[in-house]
């Protein structure tokens, strides 16, 4: 078991970060191609930066969605994302490991805050899973990938909490530790190659999405022709 932990802390970790870094670079290079394509295919090539920025901010901080129809989902998603961003990056233990490895450190979260965020993220994940299972439309749209990613996030947070509180753990520490390492590494590996890529491609997706609504050059004419009203004023 200790050999497995040594592997998970050594080569596997190195591999996970290598895959994450080179995979992210690949996604960004491909994203440049997609941006150029979207720009070329749009009839109206102006990008409304201000409006788009505002709109994107609205998605990141979903205040408006709190008046919508899926309020528990909105809250759970926001809470989970806050935990997912803050805990892995600012947990004291993680930062200490990174400082040991590459010699760079940064301020950390207090342990109590990290615990609270972890539990909140777990609760958020539970709500997301329930939503996916119970809501009709979500269930039909979900594939194996969606459940796998949810399960991985739940495992990573749960084992992470138990690593920090070994007294509450029903399993031996090594098992929990190994589970935490492997699930987290799998998440890192999957970031560039799955739906988790939205973490890398958020900005470019917003721009492509915005340009994608614009008609292709001459698109209006084609629609009119398809409707049998070619040459008529709109």
């Amino acid at each position, binding site marked *: 078991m200790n050999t497995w932990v040594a592997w998970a802390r050594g*080569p596997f970790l190195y591999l996970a970060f290598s895959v994450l*870094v080179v*995979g992210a*670079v690949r996604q960004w290079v491909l994203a440049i191609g997609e941006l150029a394509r979207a720009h070329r295919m749009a009839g109206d090539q102006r990008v409304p930066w201000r409006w788009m920025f505002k709109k994107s901010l609205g998605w990141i901080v979903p205040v408006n969605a709190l008046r919508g129809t899926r309020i528990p989902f909105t809250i759970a998603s926001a809470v989970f994302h806050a935990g997912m961003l803050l805990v892995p990056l600012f947990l004291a233990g993680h930062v200490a490991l990174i400082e040991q490895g590459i010699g760079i450190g940064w301020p950390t979260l207090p342990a109590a805050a990290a615990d609270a965020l972890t539990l909140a993220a777990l609760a958020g994940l539970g709500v997301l899973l329930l939503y996916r299972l119970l809501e009709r439309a979500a269930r039909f749209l979900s594939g194996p990938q969606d459940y796998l990613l949810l399960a991985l996030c739940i495992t990573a947070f749960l084992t992470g909490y138990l690593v920090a509180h070994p007294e509450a753990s029903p399993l031996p520490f090594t098992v929990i530790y190994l589970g935490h390492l492997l699930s987290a590494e799998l998440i890192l590996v999957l970031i560039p190659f799955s739906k988790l890529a939205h973490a890398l491609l958020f900005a470019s997706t917003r721009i492509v999405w915005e340009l994608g609504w614009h008609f292709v050059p001459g698109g209006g004419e084609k629609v009119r022709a398809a409707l049998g009203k070619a040459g008529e004023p709109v």
Partner: protein
Amino acid sequence: MENRRLFLFKGVMWILAGLAAAVAIVRFSLGLGVSTALSDSTPWGLWIGFDVMGGVALAAGGFVMAAVVHIFHRERYHAAARPAILTAFLGYGAVAVGLLFDLGLPWNIWHATIYWNVRSALFEVAWCVMLYLTVLALEVTPTILERTPFQKTYRFFVKLALPIMILGIMLSTLHQSSLGTMLLIMPFRVHPLWYSHLLPELFFVSAICLGIVMVMVESTVTSWLYRREPEMEMLAGLARLASIALACYFVMKSADLLLQGKLATVFDGTWLANLFILEMLLSTVIPMVGFAFPAVRRSFRGMWFLACCSVAGFVLDRINASGLSQVWATRRFYFPEWTEFAISLGIVAACVLVFFFIQERFPVDPHGLEAVEAERKARATALPAFAPFAQVWLGEGWRKSAKVYSFLFVLALAVGLTAAPKAEPVVDTRAVRAVGANILRIGPGPRYVYFDHKKHQDEAGGRKSCALCHHLHQKGDVGTPCVVCHENLFLPTSVFNHDAHVSALAGNDSCAKCHGKGEPIRVTPTKKCSECHDKDMMAANPVVKTFASKWAPSYKDAMHTMCIPCHEEKAKDVTLKLPNLGRCGACHNGGTESEKAYTAEFPAGTTAGARS
């Protein structure tokens, strides 16, 4: 219908390229010592043998086909000329790139253009590569321009083609043979079976053979990959040509061995001799005999197999000549690290991918363009493709290729980065030691002693005194071990090599040149060394005085009087942390029972070898 065969093949090429990219990062950031099995005694390994020597030879198809088609006007082989020239261009590009990996100071690769050393064999090699690469670029240009709007430029290059081709053939002739010349200057390193005064000519003829069989391999493999009818008539003609060329090579090689009296060495059963037999069988004998049969020349598989066999044999020949056959002289074990294989394969893979890229866009030969056209037609009715797990639309055409192949590339890159060695860079090389680091290797094993090279050099009379210790008659550029002169443990030894002098001064008639005519042969009336060797051997102020009188002190005296004072002095230096350096056990640290009996009361605690 999509061409799955081509798709998988390209995928494998991208994976190899990804691995090589990872190793390249490690090699250029941490250096050769960390990333390869190369060492000072084996500085030429797989990379020189395969990437440079093999790469140049594999690119020989370019000049052979240019000569066959454009000089001898054998129009039957016209279809093979453009792919062969493109391959030669990419091959030479690969040689240049491969050389960058192998040079200790790759950023100095341009030095040959400015700092001319006209007596160096490598000077000729470097200039031939540069000029021929330029010529090949000019030869490839018409292919690229043919279907572009730049028709005026295209016609200009077509007019230029013939003189350029002739220049290219000339340069190739020079260059293929000058690689042999390079080995010609190391008679002590290259094994007798590979060493010959005919090396340049043998290299040239074998390059012609390899050029022909390489064109066959290329033609068969592309028609298999693109699922095209093979050009059997052309292949059969090439096979006949290859058979004749291989026979010429075989006759040359055997006659050379016979006249040098080395034929018996071929069958002496050592593993190098067996390697030589294997190489000759693969490269020459089997294909030569095989291609002579008309039945083989009618069979696609037969020709493919024999051509591959011959290519493998000739590549093995280049690796043997430039690397393996020298291990015989240096007696150092060398087997390439996986990183070396990764770079070699990765460079080949990159070349293959560039070849496909150009072939599918420009009129190199009809296969590529037709394949692209067929795919475009098929795409109109094809269902959209999705990535298996991510469920993302892959796009069409080059977008799909970019997504799939870049995925394979980055995965291989990440795996390679993880697996690549990540040690501290090696700085303790012989070159470093010679220019200032104070370490000397003693004996064949990994034992080192503190040794101030610069001080010795200064005291012995500067740069001219090298021969005092680094005797020029030592084989394989080995530094002289102490015991060569201090031969006897207790008695002084004469260091005068009488036999060598007799043979150098024309045998038995030469006695009088040193001993005088009609006088008894004794020490006193004989000439002093300095009467002949006033410049080449004697330093102005030699540190080892006994050398001048032809007597070396006994090993014990030499070691005890030369080493002990310095050892004792260094033992007092607390910064070295070697307090026991002055004790007997520092050097007598193991060995025989009698040695242990003498040194037991002075245990070393730490040895001189600990500083390696």
